[in-house]
Structures are given as structure tokens and as C-alpha cells.
């Protein structure tokens, strides 16, 4: 694992195994996300990408191994604990609360927070980042365009004041023009100092903005390298980028 100057990992998997019933999903997975990094997890369908995210967030409990948040083993801690301590997910396909207003969606992102001033501050920050969101505040989230929904989804996640943002297939279901814009957005948020863990199928695009990446295949990490090295890796090029 490529440690950075001996800093402790923000979020880490140590030999994690998970099962759905008898089906073995993740097999001895090791991952580490260091503060300020933008890392991505690549993999085809059914390779265990979503399970990885669910395990990180505590919606799936590993059968063995450790999930470590900031040096603390959090295997038994509920999702709420992890969210309070800085892990938040932007779900696949955005999945806003469609019949609630944009404002309510953002409020729900800060569900576990009690510091009203801080929440108001973060709301302003999100309005600065996405002026369009402010205009649409009282509108139903389901009536927004795809691009706007993506902004609200990211905004909702930022409202919990996360230290690491988990993004599940951020480019899925977006028009090609928006995909580009979306990655630009992610790059920007990262440039502001956010650590990001991104799960993507669009390997080329993801690696172009990431620091490091892993490739997951049927629940096992088969490649683990810097983004440039992965981009140059002939094996990966053959299996992913060639198709893309």
C-alpha cells in the first residue's frame, strides 16, 4: 500500500471479507484512503464495488477483517456514527428524495448535526459552489434536470461536513456533456481539500483526475497503483479502457 509520508489513513480496509448469505463478495480486500486524496475503485459489474461502499458506510458488516476510521476499528459502529465522524456517500444515480424540496434534501444531509450555525454556514458554502441550487431551493428535487440533481446530491452529502466523500458511480445516468462537467466538479471539490473515494466504471475519466486507484475483480483487488501507472497499464487498458 502506498502510504504517504507515514500519515494515518482516514479510512481503511484491512483484509475485509463480506458475505451475502453464502455468497462470498469481498475477498481479503485492503484499501486505504489518506487525507486529501482522490482515489478511485474500478471494476466491472458484480465485482463488489457497491458492497465496498456499503461496508465502508456500515450498511453491510464484514464477516472478517477490519474497517478502520481514523485509526479506530468501526466494524460494530452504526452508519450514524460513521456519518457523524466524516464519512458520507453520494449514492449511485443521485437518488434524491424526489418529492421533497431541494432545501429539505439539503437539510436531511445535515440530519445528524446539531450545530445550527455550522449548518447555515455550510448551506451558504453550497450556494456559493452551486448558485443554481439556491434558485431551486423550494422546488421538488424530482423536477430538477440531471445536472442540477447531481449538484443537489453532492450538496446534500457536503451538508454533513464530511472528511471523506464516497461517490458511487458519479457519471452513471448522466448525459455525456454532463459527465465531463461532473468530473470537473469532483476535481474542484477535491482541490478544496476534500478526500474523495470514487467508484467508477468510466475508468479513463476517473483515472484522469484521481491520485491512485484500485481495480476490483470478482471481489478481489487485482491492481493497486498510482493513477498514471494504471492508465499506462496494458492489462487495464485491454480490459477496461479498450472497451470504454
Amino acid at each position, binding site marked *: 500500500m502506498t502510504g504517504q509520508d507515514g500519515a494515518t489513513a482516514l479510512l481503511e480496509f484491512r483484509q475485509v471479507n463480506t458475505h451475502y448469505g453464502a455468497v462470498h463478495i469481498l475477498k481479503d480486500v485492503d484499501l486505504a484512503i489518506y487525507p486529501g486524496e482522490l482515489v478511485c475503485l474500478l471494476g466491472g459489474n458484480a465485482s463488489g464495488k457497491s458492497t465496498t461502499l456499503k461496508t465502508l458506510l456500515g450498511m453491510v458488516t464484514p464477516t472478517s477483517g477490519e474497517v478502520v476510521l481514523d485509526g479506530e476499528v468501526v466494524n460494530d459502529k452504526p*452508519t*450514524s456514527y*460513521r456519518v457523524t465522524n466524516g464519512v458520507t456517500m453520494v449514492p449511485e444515480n443521485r437518488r434524491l*428524495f424526489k418529492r421533497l424540496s431541494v432545501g429539505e434534501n439539503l437539510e436531511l444531509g445535515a*440530519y445528524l448535526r446539531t450545530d445550527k450555525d455550522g449548518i447555515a454556514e455550510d448551506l451558504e458554502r453550497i450556494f456559493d459552489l452551486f*448558485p443554481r441550487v439556491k434558485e431551486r431551493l423550494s422546488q*421538488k428535487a424530482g423536477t430538477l*434536470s440531471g445536472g442540477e440533481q447531481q*449538484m443537489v446530491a453532492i450538496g446534500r452529502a457536503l451538508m454533513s461536513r464530511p472528511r471523506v466523500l464516497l461517490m458511487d458511480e458519479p457519471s452513471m445516468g448522466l448525459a455525456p456533456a454532463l459527465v465531463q462537467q461532473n468530473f470537473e466538479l469532483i476535481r474542484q471539490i477535491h*482541490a478544496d481539500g476534500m478526500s474523495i473515494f470514487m467508484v467508477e466504471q468510466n475508468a479513463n475519466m476517473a483515472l484522469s483526475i484521481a491520485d491512485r486507484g484500485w481495480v476490483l475483480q470478482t471481489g478481489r483487488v487485482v491492481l493497486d497503483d498510482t493513477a498514471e501507472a494504471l492508465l499506462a497499464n496494458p492489462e487495464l487498458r485491454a480490459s477496461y479502457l479498450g472497451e470504454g
Partner: protein
Amino acid sequence: MSVIAAPVPSSILDQDWRKVLRWGLICGGALIAMCLVGMPVEMDRRAIIERYLSLGYLTVLFIPVLVGWVASTQVVLEGVEARKQGPFDLVTGFVVGAIGGGFLALLMVALDSWNLRDPLVNWSPKLFRFLTYENGMGFGAVAWIVTGAVLGLVGASFHIVPRTVRRVTSFVVFGLISLSILESLIDDLSEGFRLEWLDEFMFAKKGGLTVTSTIVIGAAIGVLSLVTDGRMKAATERYRNMEGVERQKTSIVLFVVIAVLCGVLPMFLGKIMNELLANVGLFLLLALGLNIVVGLAGLLDLGYVAFFAVGGYTTAVLTSPNSPWFAPELHFGIALIFVVIFATITGLVIGAPVIRMRGDYLAIVTLGFGEIIRLLFMSDWLGPYFGGAQGVTNIPGVDLGFATVKGTDPRSVFYLVLFFCAIAIYVSWRLQASRLGRAWMAIREDEQVAEAMGINTVSAKLMAFVVGAVLASFSGAVLAAKVGSVFPTSFMILVSIIILVVVIVGGMGNIAGVMVGSFVLIGVLGGPKQPGLLQEFQNFKLLIYGLLLVFMMLKRPEGLVPSARRSRELHQEEFLQDAWLQDDKLDSDDEVSVGDGGAEEQ
């Protein structure tokens, strides 16, 4: 309307005749179904306008009007994308109505020729007499075809006549029908206010409006509709657009007006009307509870009657001297504490195992639990404790010190129910705006994402179950005190279903909607065992409930009273459609604004 001008058909006979025919068949089918269901004959007894129009004829006559109205919007000539409403609509309505009338004529011939009374109970000479107006078949057949055609024409013409005409006509017609339907309420009210002359003027001795009053009142409503034209809409619009404090103030004023009405009106009402209001209140209380479970948290609970039963039986056992096994004869108020405790326990016991299920599964399992609770109370096993099928009787009223609330004095029951409803409304209102309320809405929208946001979905859902259970148990407790006895048969599954219909028809997740729903359904049509204002509909209540439910789900899923949230959404959809054409422009704005934001950040 489309931007592209549509070519107007050259002739009014240039129709899509297949569609016209199809709608004609629908009209005829509906008419025959209505006749064979038995509604017209049964309701012929109730007069709407003395001697001239009975409710029975109304149930038949409205069909061609309605179908004519709908059909003329549906029959579109092939190749013509959008068109203006015009004379050809009249042809459509006319033909559709005539076909419908023709079906009735055929029905008459069939009625006369064969006897199918065995499978079809309503295949009777009575129906024949009803249809022919006791004037022979030839007259009947011609009369129905002509009437059908004319009514279809009237229905279709609604699209063509000026808006004012449409408004005045519909106001007069609906106003007169509602006045006539509310006859017993008006009787009762005018007696209470010492205004018997008004009642005598309006209604004939045998029921129904008199001809004179029809004309006078009709004219009055017509004038009223002209005067108020546009104002009502403007007022509600203004109310919807209000923000913050202003809106709150208006809401409070509205609320106080309704509260005063609820408090004062019963004093002027007689026994029957107060009984009816008390029933409405009991079901409103149930519906408010279910609204939290289904409307806010999105948990489809079909066994809601279980909590109603627990409330009723707890009160019965704790207060009645006739309780078969344990009869502490507590005061209602003290029993209520135990009602809350037992309802909470039942809510948790039923909720805990089923709460992890989703959607349909939850519905089926709660349906089962609802029946299990009833069967337990009915069983021989628990018979020694709860009286089995004999139930628990002799439940005393509520002794308040200065007055006793009991079933023989429905006004007092109504006030007791009102008290609980007020609590329920307050609780629902506060919960809706609370953190828990937001968590419920998030769960309703997307449970997995709600979980990912850190919401403890299991405990939030259990809370919804428990709050709903407590409200239902209050209703059960009042029912026990009101009726003076509880039986397992008071807690049939039908109760769960009717409450659900009340919530859906009124407007899910919306307190005002639930209130309107209970008044309209329980007050007008009646509850599972309680008669409503339209006692004639008693036998057809479930049919009407079912039809209403299907219609609402198809045409107005947001309910009779859409919440501000819902109407906002509809409003926005229109707005978005307008914005659709400018979408490209918006998208380019989009990129610019994001870029700007980023630049500022860096």
C-alpha cells in the same frame, strides 16, 4: 395547446368513428351496469327535486353527461395532433349519448322478454317500470335514446360554451344536488337555529327540494357564482403564495374559525347529526393516526384496526363491571393511561418483526396481524378474559365531574372526540415539521439513502408505528365508552381498509386532506357500520368506496386536498414545460455558473 396550428377537419361528420363507437359502448355499459347494480331503483325513493327528479334517476342521468364530456376530449381525428374544441364535439357527445340510451332501450326489451332474475337480482319488473317511466316500452325506448343523446350533447357542449356559462351551470347543478343531499343536516340545523320556515320553504314534505325553492335557490347560487368568479381562486392562490409569518397568521385565523365552528355548531344540532359528527370524529382520529404511518413514513399498514381494537378492549376491561375476568372498574381517564401503554406495546410487538419488510410484504403481514388480533379476542382461548363473541358490555360513560359522556348523549361524545382529534392534529402538525417527521419523509422517499444519511430507519419506523397505534387506541377507547360495549365484530378488516381509503381520498400526508376525507366519506357515505347523510347509499357504500378509490388513484393521486407541497409540484411542472424550449440556454448558463463558483473558491 400545441404551438403548431392544427388543420381543422372540414366537416363536423369527419370523425374518428371507431373511437366514438367505443365511447358509446362505454356509456351503454356503464348505464346497464348501473341499472343492474340496483342503485337507480333503490334510490328512486329519495327525491332530489320534488316529483320531478329522484336520486335514482340522477344515478342514471349523470352517466351520459359525464361520458359525453370525457369522450369529446378523447375522440381525436387521426392525423390531427391538437385541435380546438368545436361543433364536432357536439356530434361526438350526441352520438355517444344516443348509443348509451340505445343500450338502455335494449335492456328494456331484454327485461320484457326474458327472466334472468335468478342470477341477476335486480332484473326485476321494478327496474322495467323505472326505465319505462310506467308509460310502456315504446315511449321508454324513444325517451331514453333522446334523453341520452341530449345529455351527451350537454356534456360535450361544456367544452364549447363560454367559461362563465360553464361556471354558473356547474355551480347551480352541484349546489342544488348538495343542498338536497344535505337535507337532513339542514333540517336539523334550521331546527336548532329556530329557522323552521327556511326548511319548510326549501324542502317538500316527502323530501326533496320544492320546485319553487329549486328555482329561487338555483338563481341565488347562479348569481353567487358570478359574483365570486375568480375571487375564490385568487384567495386560495394568495394563501398559497404567502410566506412565513403572514401565512402562519392566516392559518391561525382559519384554524380558529374552524375550531369555533366545531365547538359551537353541535349545540344547534340534534341527536342524529351529533351522532354522525361523533362518528366522523372517531374515524378522523383513526385516519390521522394512519396518516402518520402511511402518509408520512410510507409504511402501508393494512392491519391498523388492531390498535383500534386494543384501545377498545383495554378500556372495556378496565372500566366495565361486566368484564369477565378482571374488572377493576377504573375511571376512563386512568384507563386511558393503560390504553396508551398497551397500544405502545402492541405497536412495538407488531412493528418489530415486520418493520424490516418493505412495501407489499409489510402490507400483507400487517393485514394478517390485524386479523390475528381480532381472532384472538374472538377465540375460546381468550374467551374467559375478553368475553369471546359476546364481547364486553356495560362499559360506563366518561364521568367528567360536571358531565357524563355516554352514547345516549352524542353531543358529549362529539366533544370528547373533538378533544382527542385536537390533540391528534396538534401532534401530527408538530411531528410533520420535526426532525423525526423529516426522517419519516426521507424513509418514505428512499429508505436506503435515508439510512446512508445516518437516519436510524428501524427506530424511526417503529416510532411511526407506535404514534399511529396510540392515536388509533384513543379512538378505540372513545368508541368503547360511546357504544358501551365492544365485540370482535366491531374490529373487522373493513375498518382498516375504509380508514386507508379516507386517507388516500383525502390526500395522503396532509392533515387538512384527511379531515376533508373523513367528512366526505364517513359523513356523507357513512362508515363500515355507521350511516352517513346519504343513507340510501348504505348498500352501495363499498362499491362507491371502491370506485372512488380507483378514480382517485388514476386521476387525482394527490387526494381531494392536495398539500401545498403537491400543488407546488404541479405548478412547477407547468413551469418546467415552459422552460423546456429554453433548455439549451439554461444548460449553457449552468456551466458558466459552476465555473464561476469554482473560480471564487480557488
